[in-house]
């Protein structure tokens, strides 16, 4: 493979022979990054804690931040499975000593129903880095360094890894690392990392009379037949096969397999999905924000309800439904906001 420089030399040579005046050199593409730019973006923290900013944060502050910004998704004790998988639970004091979470062993008596973050966590840097770069989910990279330390400490406290009065800092984080319940629970001895690694499971070459009898060990239960919607509507109308009508009623077979009418009126639900409204607002269930049904009920009967809702969507806000703020949606076209507001007002979801 040519290096960039080589490629350019050839290119430039070709142009020069055509008597073109070429001042560009390869190094003129791109420019050196300034120290401030590198500092602004180079936020990653490695397992050896290179990249970790100096600072500290207490479990106490962590709890405050947690209750304001994290609890709605993760639950008061990091146990919630409503939006994301649980964070705390399933680790023991004995695990902290061994560095292996016993509840993850197949058939373990103390096996947790679901693997939590703390059961899997082998590097504290991973937790700190992730909270710092990607949390809170709907407003990432807005926590202060102290708050990131504090939330990390609070998560560790939820797992009984540090006490309630603990203050996590860049000075003691290496010591805490040594107590992580699953710090010895990972392996890189597998064939899926380095190019040229040997696969761990090789298939069979056999081509004739390979198995004596075939027995079906698993198939979809009848009750799940329509769980993914009508499969007839998920296949092409022509060709060698059709999609199976799983909707049940035989009479609907023909109509079910024709395309829906193409309407130019925007579907408000689609707009709400497109603009990520539904990431935080369920139709009937509370997620980060109130459900659409709740919003509809609250504003039913309000004078000029569509304009009121449209203004609220556009400006965002907090305090009406709780402390979690809704960001302003100024980037959403007015026509779409109007359509969504009218849909909310009508309440026919």
């Amino acid at each position, binding site marked *: *493979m040519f*290096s*960039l*420089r080589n490629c350019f030399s050839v290119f430039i040579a070709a142009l020069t022979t055509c008597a073109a005046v070429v001042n560009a050199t390869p190094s003129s*593409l*791109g420019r*050196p*990054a300034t120290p401030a730019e590198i500092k602004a973006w*180079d936020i*990653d923290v*490695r397992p050896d804690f290179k990249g970790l900013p100096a600072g500290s944060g207490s479990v106490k502050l962590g709890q405050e931040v947690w209750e304001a910004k994290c609890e709605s998704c993760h639950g008061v004790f990091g146990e919630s499975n*409503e*939006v*994301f998988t649980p964070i705390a639970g399933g680790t023991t004091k004995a695990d902290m000593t061994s560095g*292996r979470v016993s509840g993850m*062993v*197949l058939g373990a008596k103390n096996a947790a129903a679901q693997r939590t973050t703390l059961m*899997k966590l*082998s590097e504290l*840097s*991973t937790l700190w*880095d*992730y909270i710092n*770069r*990607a949390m809170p989910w709907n407003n*990432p*990279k807005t926590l202060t360094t102290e708050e990131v330390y504090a939330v990390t400490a609070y998560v560790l406290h939820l797992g009984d890894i540090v006490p309630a009065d603990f203050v996590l800092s860049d000075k003691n984080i290496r010591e805490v690392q040594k107590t992580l319940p699953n710090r010895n629970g*990972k392996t*890189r001895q*597998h064939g*899926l*990392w380095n190019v040229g*690694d040997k696969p761990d*499971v090789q*298939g*069979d070459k056999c*081509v*004739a009379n*390979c198995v004596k009898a075939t027995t*079906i*060990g*698993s*198939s*979809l239960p009848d009750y799940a037949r329509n*769980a*993914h919607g009508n499969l007839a*509507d*998920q*296949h*092409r109308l022509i060709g060698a096969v*059709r*999609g*199976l*009508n*799983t909707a049940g009623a*035989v009479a609907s*077979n023909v109509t079910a397999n024709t*395309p*829906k009418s193409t309407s130019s009126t925007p579907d408000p639900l689609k707009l709400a999905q497109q603009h990520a409204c539904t990431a935080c607002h369920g139709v009937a269930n509370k*997620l980060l924000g109130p459900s659409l049904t709740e919003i509809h009920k609250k504003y039913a009967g309000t004078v000029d309800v569509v304009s009121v809702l449209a203004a609220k969507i556009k400006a965002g806000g907090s305090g009406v439904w709780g402390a979690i703020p809704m960001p302003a949606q100024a980037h959403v076209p007015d026509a779409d906001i109007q359509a969504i507001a009218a849909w909310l007002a009508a309440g026919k979801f």
Partner: protein
Amino acid sequence: MNDFNSTQMGRLQKAPEFFLSREAMTLSRDDRRSFLRRAFVAASGVAAAAAGGRALASEGDPAILKLPTHSTGLGAPVAAKGYGTPSKYEENLQRRESPGLTRVSAASVSFAPLQGFFGIITPSGLHFERHHQGFWDIDPRQHRFMINGLVKTPKVFTMDDLMRMPCVSRMHFIECGANTGMEWGNVAVPTVQYTHGMLSCCEFTGVPLKWLLDDCGIDLKKAKYVLAEGADGSGMTRTINLANALDDVMVAYGMNGEMLRPENGYPLRLVVPGVQGVSWVKYLRRIEVGDMPYAAKDENLHYVDLLPDGALRTYTSIQEVKSVITTPSGGQVLLDKGFYAITGIAWSGRGKIRRVEISTDGGKNWKDARLETPVLDKCLTRFNFNWTWNGSDAILQSRATDSTGHIQPTMTALRAARGTRSTYHNNSIQSWLVSANGEVSNVQLA
């Protein structure tokens, strides 16, 4: 709707192929608008009456005899659609979520409708999606790409810079590490869209990362890994092996002849051929060159493969040799006995597909499928196999072998080594049961 003379589009009879009973299949065969079929039925003298006086009395197919509007009218003008869209009759082929798999759609996945694809290229609008924190349509004029770490000169590139550079175009598959992940314990989903649809294959255009690293003066004595980082809320990070980074990894802006779609990382994403999709960082803003793996969340905490002894395989990356039959496949109905082209796709993160074999008897006997060209490195390969269905139960399977000699294993062999809780990297042989009533369903063999 049931009138043979109707000019309505589509199937005109009662669509009996959607029945599940043997009687219904018989009806389907007898009621078929095939002249050959009718001739057969008439000759056999069995169901001549069932074939109906109406068909035999007809002078032919009204789709031929009665000229349709599109033959007698004026069509739409050029540029009626500045950016063309598929026919409305193709509306059934959509990216879809798997109900119950995730709780919020901005941290979810949509599956590509593999059951409807031809060849190896995924149409851009049907490329599978995986977003951890929603997707964005970023102003490319404001997008910046930085290289720092163990390089002589840390640099910043604009999209103008990157698109001015020499570039390459290559076709590669991208597969989520969790593809087929729902099937580790048992059959969980009905169709190939949901079993294998976190898979796409496109032609990508961009600058080989090696050229950019060379341009910044990478310190090859110290460098062992690079970290890729995204500009979106998730700030997605993954460690890439230097061996990959210096081989075929690409900083890509083009996909299938146009710019990347916003759902796929517009205006810049990393292409890491052969490696699971989460490493193909979207909205790529930074590459850091380093000397140790970074233990990012999605290589050290998530996207880790749990073994029976409780150990977690971290940094699992390579997508191993795998194939699947896309037709006939789960949730489909065969219209009749007789000829079918079994078709599907095969791929390997370690190289090219060398061979695909087909079994129609649940793995007892295997015969070679035909590989269609092109057969490329770390790219989907289309295979075809001529088959005549005799109307009895059949279990269809495909088994791929790659250029390193790695053969796709059975689910049983995979479970024996890794248990059932691995979540990721399920490259097992897929089984589709064709039942006598024509219905095809997802099954696993004991």
